[in-house]
């Protein structure tokens, strides 16, 4: 199964979006939060993200979903063609769409495509 990593400046935000996604998507897809610096401060840490990637990597690829700013920049540094990809999607909706798709066991490209569809969802 494709793994997901939620990357945020805030450890709390990343952890809560993972919890929300698990609750709503209700899937077995491996998911990890990579928020904040190693010492808990606001920021993005390449080490924290790398650890999260390793924890969800089952060999089918990993989708990184960053919130904004340096989360995006740091996540992009970890991209590996066809293995670790960054999704340019809304943080919450993209995570849920990706988790639902990943839970069905589809390949990385399909999980990414499902996440990207979330970009056009309208709330009203």
């Amino acid at each position, binding site marked *: 199964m494709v793994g997901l990593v939620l990357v945020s*400046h805030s450890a709390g935000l990343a952890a809560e979006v993972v919890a929300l996604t698990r609750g709503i998507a209700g899937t077995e897809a491996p998911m990890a939060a990579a928020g904040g610096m190693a010492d808990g401060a*606001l*920021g*993005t840490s*390449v080490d924290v993200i790398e650890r999260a990637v390793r924890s969800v990597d089952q060999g089918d690829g990993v989708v990184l979903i960053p919130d904004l*700013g*340096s989360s995006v*920049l*740091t996540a992009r540094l970890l991209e590996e063609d066809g293995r670790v990809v960054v999704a340019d999607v809304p943080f919450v909706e993209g995570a849920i769409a990706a988790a639902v798709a990943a839970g069905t066991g589809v390949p990385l490209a399909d999980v990414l495509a499902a996440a990207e569809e979330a970009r056009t969802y309208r709330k009203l």
Partner: protein
Amino acid sequence: MDADVFVAWFEEAARLVHQDRDRLTRLDAEIGDADHGTNLDRGLTEVCKALTGAPPASPAQVLSTAGTTLIRKVGGASGPLYGSVFRQMGKQMSKAAETQGTQGTQEARVPVTLAAFAAAFEEGVVAVERLGKAALGDKTMVDALAPASRALALAVRDGVDVSEALGQAARAAAEGAKATIPMQARKGRASYLGERSVGHEDPGAASAALIMAALATVAG
């Protein structure tokens, strides 16, 4: 320009950024998230620690170590951005050394020419433009780095000596930083301010100017 010059570059850059930390943070407080001075100060201090702990033999290794350290130690955008510039420069220099056959235990100490430095610097700027998807005029560090790169390329073309060339690059970076004042930000947090970002110097461009000034000082 040998490895010692590049180590001295980062030491001087760390000193200048530390000295101007509050100004950089103040610039960032106006249009960003007020962490640029502190983050870069901490990042460059870590770079100096890494470089003095195990001084690398080649210019390429100095730049790679500096880039990787910034990426690992800085939690804000300046870490991955500056980190990519220096890491890419290191990569480019080691590739150039390989094609010239000057790579190896003894030969690794071979200094880089101004032309090789200018070429590596250009690659570094391209890397940061690609990572941040920023172009000239977006009110980012690219507005200081790209003019510096152009100044270096012109200096190489005109056969200007190293000291003069680095002076010109530093001036181009400083002018580029000042030129961000009337710009409207199109990248990062400042872009959310829209027209209200006009009238403030971009902190990333300001720190890039300091870093280029540091190089002119140590190799000038």
